[in-house]
């Protein structure tokens, strides 16, 4: 068979059933082979290669499977960079296959040749150029193993055209071992012992939950752990939905726009238990004043995260699936009733100062928070929430309620505007039985608006909600707060979004006043077809609470 066919067979053997891609010159033999694999592999033609990567991310994040992209060389390869970088920052398993000019032309500035391996090495777990068809099975097996094992991440295979044509004998062996790569550190009983001892001595323990729990499928183990010693817990942006919103020990969202309680309690607890999170600056604020009073326990699969931002008194290496239950086993039961109750006053304060106004307004213009909460309630908190980046993202994270895991798909580390639409496409492909609601601003929607074509062609039933404030809202918020209301290039004149959707044969409606909102949401959710809901919200809405960049988590602002 040809190298291109070998690639198809290899992917089927890796369990690939969905690919997001875009054909072009240097990948044509592969697309030709794909033509005969339509029974095994569903290929989604996006409208831009960046869209293919975000769709693959959405697919991977919601399903736990490896997302796969297939694109050509040159400009296609540079167009996938944003998604690859995003996947590295957010530990998302991706295999991105780029076409490449024939090996004989490498390094000659041939048409649509670019140094893909050179460009992607710093933003991938592994990048490899396949120059000979003999290497295909080995490279594909290795790529999938690396992408999905340990701390997941993106892998790039740059596939030279000569190798796509070349005839070979095909033999496939899955990769299970690379001697220079140990994806999951072995659990060290001494570390487990030390962590359990600290927790057992704690009077005010507090757990921070990151995406590591989700990636390890350790949600159940986490719940058992927290319940055994009654440890209050809060989540990072990517740890959202690892605990259900109504779980009594779930005390909310951490970080810059997180809840007041979890941020304040970070500086009041005596033992801080970080699980599968990386102390991002958006979580910690000023490191010099971060949890200085607490002993720090840090559970992570990636040794390079230990002591990177916050020094750990008790590091625990390993997969959360193994380390959490190992610690639970050694925990004494405890109640910590007074400590847990002490979160309430902050919750009350935040409700009065922020939430009341944002989620339950009685007059004035529509607020972002009330739209989010209404959509969440209308979907019985069962939807997959996908967001773009900015105010829409923070509002969606704050005011959605989650009943099951893998329910918030958002670009956390890289903060990629334009992530929303394509990621929602991928999320719906990865979880077709679930309702997928995508919240977006008017800015981000226009960054990948062409993917409406993908939604039209594939009839992907994503529910898109634009929170339209005619501003690049988060930047505007910062300009208001930190740049003396000098609104430099953040005001936007927008098109008629519903008319654009209509041109793509997507139903939609636009809402201007509160009284129309419930009916519009009901109309959006009446069936499983794609839908665009444009909600004109207050122009100068603010996301509060807010910890300004570089401030301490204790200095959280609540607005007026």
């Amino acid at each position: 068979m040809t190298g291109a066919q070998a690639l198809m067979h290899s992917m089927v053997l890796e369990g690939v059933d969905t690919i997001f891609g875009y054909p072009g010159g240097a990948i044509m033999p592969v697309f030709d082979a794909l033509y005969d694999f339509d029974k095994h592999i569903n290929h989604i033609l996006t409208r831009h290669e960046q869209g293919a990567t975000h769709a693959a991310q959405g697919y991977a994040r919601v399903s736990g499977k490896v997302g796969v992209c297939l694109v050509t060389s040159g400009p296609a390869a540079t167009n996938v960079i944003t998604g690859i970088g995003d996947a590295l920052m957010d530990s998302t398993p991706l295999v991105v296959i780029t076409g490449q000019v024939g090996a004989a032309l490498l390094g000659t500035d041939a048409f649509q040749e670019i140094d893909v391996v050179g460009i992607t090495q710093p933003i991938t777990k592994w990048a490899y150029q396949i120059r000979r068809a003999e290497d295909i099975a080995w490279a594909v097996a290795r790529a999938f193993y690396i992408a999905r094992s340990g701390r997941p991440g993106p892998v790039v295979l740059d596939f030279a055209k000569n190798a796509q044509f070349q005839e070979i004998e095909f033999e496939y062996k899955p990769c299970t071992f690379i001697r220079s790569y140990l994806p999951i550190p072995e659990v060290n009983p001494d570390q487990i012992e030390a962590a359990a001892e600290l927790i057992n001595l704690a009077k005010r323990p507090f757990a921070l939950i990151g995406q590591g729990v989700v990636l390890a499928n350790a949600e159940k183990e986490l719940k058992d752990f927290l319940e055994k010693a009654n440890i209050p817990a809060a989540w990072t942006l990517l740890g959202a939905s690892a605990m259900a919103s109504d779980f009594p020990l779930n005390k909310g969202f951490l970080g810059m726009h997180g809840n007041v309680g979890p941020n304040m309690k970070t500086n009041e607890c005596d033992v801080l238990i970080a699980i599968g999170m990386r102390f991002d600056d958006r979580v910690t604020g000023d490191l010099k004043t971060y949890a200085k009073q607490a002993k720090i326990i840090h559970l992570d699969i990636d040794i390079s995260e230990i002591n990177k931002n916050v020094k750990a008194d008790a590091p625990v290496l390993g997969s959360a699936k193994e380390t959490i239950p190992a610690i639970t086993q050694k925990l004494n039961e405890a109640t910590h009733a007074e400590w847990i109750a002490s979160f309430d006053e902050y919750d009350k304060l935040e409700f009065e100062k922020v939430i009341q106004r944002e989620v339950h307004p009685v007059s004035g213009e529509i607020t972002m928070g009330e739209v989010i909460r209404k959509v969440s309630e209308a979907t019985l908190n069962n939807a997959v929430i996908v967001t773009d980046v900015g105010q829409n993202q923070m509002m969606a994270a704050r005011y959605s309620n989650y009943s099951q895991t893998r329910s918030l798909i958002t670009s956390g580390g890289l903060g990629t505007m334009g992530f929303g639409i394509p990621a929602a496409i991928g999320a719906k492909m990865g979880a077709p039985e679930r309702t997928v609601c995508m919240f977006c601003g008017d800015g981000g929607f226009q960054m990948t608006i062409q993917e409406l074509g993908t939604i039209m062609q594939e009839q992907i039933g994503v529910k898109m909600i634009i929170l339209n404030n005619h501003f690049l809202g988060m930047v505007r918020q910062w300009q208001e707060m930190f740049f003396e209301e000098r609104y430099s290039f953040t005001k936007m004149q927008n098109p008629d979004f519903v008319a654009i959707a209509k041109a793509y044969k997507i139903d939609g409606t636009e809402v201007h006043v509160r009284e129309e909102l419930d009916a519009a949401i009901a109309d959006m959710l009446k069936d499983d077809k794609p839908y665009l809901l444009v909600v004109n919200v207050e122009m100068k809405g603010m996301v509060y609470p807010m910890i300004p960049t570089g401030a301490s988590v204790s200095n959280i602002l609540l607005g007026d």
Partner: protein
Amino acid sequence: MENTLYTITVFSENTVGLLGQITIIFTRRGLNIETLSVSPSAIKGIHKFTITLFTTEDMVIKTVQQIDKRIDILKAYYNTDEGLVSQEIALYKVATDKLLELGSIETLIRHHHIHILEMNENFVVFEKTGHYDETQQLFEELRDSVGVLQFIRSGRVAITRSKVERLSDMLDSIQEKFEKNNGYLNIQ
């Protein structure tokens, strides 16, 4: 924090592009590599990098962890000078006539333990091994007395003083685990 000279040792598979993967980690953090030396190690198929740089301990730890994280890196670690036996080599090209004008060069040769690699009517090539200070001292002496036509100094090569032979022990333990698990290691 005070900057100290650290020596980072890296063992890697011999794959294309490895050097780039390592150097980009330094570039991203604005770290300047002082010396770099790469060669096949004692174990077939495994290459050894010796990299020196001035930085803080906190930074060298994080840099080493990022290097170690790369898929094709077998092991990376760092040492200060106390933990190492290290050496550099330097070559000096000087004009023969200028050298002869000095009269006797016996003292110079004996004092610096110089090897003479080549000598002809035009030039002489000296070789000296030693630490940076030593090769530098000879360079300065020659420069001031007879002038140096060309000078080159190698990167540092180093061997650890520690009793533990980290790479071979690690390879053995990996292989053992791999076999114990019937060829399956840490599969999710």
